[in-house]
């Protein structure tokens, strides 16, 4: 008897009793339902939204987008988009027969904000970067939120001052991610890198030779689920001399593996190269076409190693190098980042790839 009374009291609190009917609003499996009344077969002249709406937020906002239908004397609202964590939904039923609206609020699923992501690597990995360094790659262990770098990524000078505004080293508003949002590419201001441009003349390059800097990533940078990083990250580096000469494959040292082994073919570069481009712009080709294997980039991006899945056979192979491969300063084969037309830039390679032969014995 006591339980029946309690149920009745709850019903009165949540619903409206009309003609012995009790209207109740339920939230079930991502849908909102109004039960306890007999909805008309057809939508009212002003649409079902005039009777029942769900609001995801407060203030002057439109109702949640979705579709209505009637099933077994229940008006059902199915949102067009998935129910989201962290959102409070306010469902409002306005009885077509007049009287007070019935409201009920529901919370979306629990938002797990346990930190699980961290900065795994930053490339270039060296602690001396050329003053015309073009790009920086930050690898996270899990997908991140975009549009946050201005807030959580800082470059400090040697006094600890955050370089912002005209002194900012990165291009403002330029966040480039990979499709998984785990690798962020930041571009140093090319206007300050290119010789002859006003910014380069007046402010100087983003990284000054001989000066010390720190790249700081705040722990609060939210991952794709809104959780902060496990820990912040700091990389200290010093400005080095500019790299003006484009990569020249004639200066690369190729070490051939022995036939019959699974040893790596190794390429050593005189200066560090762009890490992501090294990963995909050198292929190994043999008599049977391209080889499959594992690539390792080492020694602060001055060494590339390829270990084939199958043993080397005695014979001739070649490294096929995309001429778009870049060093740290954006110079690519046969083409400096900024061409000085007063110098002789004669090495224009028109083919898209070059071959570096090697033999296994």
């Amino acid at each position, binding site marked *: 008897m006591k339980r029946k009374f309690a149920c009745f009291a709850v019903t009165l609190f949540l619903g409206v009793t009309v003609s012995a009917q009790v209207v109740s609003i339920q939230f079930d499996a991502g849908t909102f339902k109004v039960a306890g009344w007999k909805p008309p077969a057809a939508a009212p002249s002003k649409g079902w939204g005039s009777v029942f709406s769900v609001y995801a*937020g407060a203030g002057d*906002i439109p109702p949640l987008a979705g579709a209505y239908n009637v099933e077994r004397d229940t008006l059902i609202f199915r949102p067009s*988009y998935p129910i989201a964590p962290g*959102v409070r939904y306010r469902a409002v039923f306005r009885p077509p027969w007049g009287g007070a609206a019935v409201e009920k609020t529901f919370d979306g699923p629990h938002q797990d904000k346990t930190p699980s992501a961290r900065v795994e690597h930053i490339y270039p990995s060296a602690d001396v970067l050329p003053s015309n360094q073009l790009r920086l790659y930050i690898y996270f262990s899990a997908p991140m939120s975009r549009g946050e770098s201005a807030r959580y990524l*800082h470059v400090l000078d040697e006094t600890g001052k955050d370089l912002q505004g005209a002194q900012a080293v990165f291009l403002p508003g330029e966040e480039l991610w*990979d499709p998984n949002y785990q*690798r962020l590419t930041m571009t140093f201001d090319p206007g300050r890198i290119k010789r002859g*441009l*006003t910014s380069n003349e007046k402010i100087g390059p983003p990284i000054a030779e001989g000066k010390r800097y720190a790249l700081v990533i705040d722990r609060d940078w*939210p991952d794709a689920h809104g959780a902060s990083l496990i820990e912040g990250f700091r990389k200290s580096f010093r400005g080095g001399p500019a790299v003006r000469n484009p990569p020249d494959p004639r200066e690369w040292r190729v070490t051939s593996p022995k036939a019959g082994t699974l040893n790596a073919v190794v390429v050593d570069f005189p200066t560090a190269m762009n890490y992501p481009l090294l990963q995909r712009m050198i292929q190994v080709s043999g008599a049977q076409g391209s080889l499959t294997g594992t690539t390792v980039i080492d020694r602060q991006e001055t060494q590339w190693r390829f270990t084939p899945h199958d043993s080397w056979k005695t014979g001739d192979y070649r490294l096929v190098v995309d001429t778009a491969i870049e060093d740290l300063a954006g110079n690519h084969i046969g083409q400096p980042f900024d061409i000085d037309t007063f110098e002789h830039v004669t090495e224009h390679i028109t083919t898209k790839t070059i071959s570096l032969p090697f033999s296994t014995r």
Partner: protein
Amino acid sequence: MRRIAFVSTAVAVCLTAALAFSVTAARRPASPLADLPSGKVQLMSAGALAFGPEGILFVGDSVGGAVVAIDTGDRKAASAAKINIQGIDEKIAALVGVTPDQILINDVKVNPISKNVYLSVSRGRGPEAMPLILRVDAAGKITTLPLDNAKHSSVSLVDAPKSNPSARQDPRMQTITNMNYVNGNVIVAGLSNEEWSSALRSIPFPFKEAAKGATLQIWHSSHGRFETESPVRTFVPYTISGQPYILAAYTCTPLVKIPVSQLQPGAQVKGVEIADLGAGNQPLDMVPYKKDGHNYILIANTARGVMKLKADNLESYPAIDSPTKTDVAGVPYDTMTNLQNVQHLTQLDDSDALIITGKTAQPAAPAGPINLQTIALP
């Protein structure tokens, strides 16, 4: 027999012809709508927008590496209304059921026929973000553009690498920064998250499976001595001395004019720098317009506010061929100090523009609300 449709009398057509190398142009159907099949629009992201003929909306899908043409069905001619929506991010968030911090507005364009406003939006900030196209009508009502069964077609911008046929997993991504439809062609500017150089593409529309468009390698002489291959951030077609040009604002700040006649397939094109818009800055959007008998271009920037470029007689400005003593040089402009925190700018009609404003989150300061606002072209 295929032929290139060159008609030199009209500037716009001339522009098309030179850009379009498009051998498919000759037999273009009367209405491009005829070629658009119905079905679910497969968008992996929604970024840069551009309107084509008959209410066709082009959507740049950087993650999917494609441009998608969608028939909006929005072809009822109307004059522009002055739309002002405070906290449009909060309203969009409520419409699609997320918190406002999970809404990112990627681009805005106005349907030139209906004057309805279209927004490309991300619902979420991570890789699972859902791409949305939203429409704002003259009354300020926001609705989502249904994509489940729409007339549409798409063209891929990238070939999946042979070693990794799943483009989704390929870390290399071409981000589409700006698009314009120029009389039969979608001109696409973009940049890559890996290599520096990035080409301008010209894609004939209606899209053909085999024709992904021509790529153009554009150089600009940065103050004469040094030349650079560089990504175009935003651009507009523009007529100078009766000749068609593209005015392109680069990632590295210069405003460069490129004669359309030089844009040939595979060509290495040299543009001429006619203005330096200043340091530490990215141009975002450009709106060319006429007022009181003069030509202007309104340029929104990341760090240097909104500029009103005086665009009369652009032919009279010599190439900037030496580093300037001042911070800026070339074609003069005024900075519109009354327009702050502009993230997007687009033309509404001959006398008005739309801006989306909002403070970017900074250390120790949260982002402010995002507003959609109509402004008179200054």
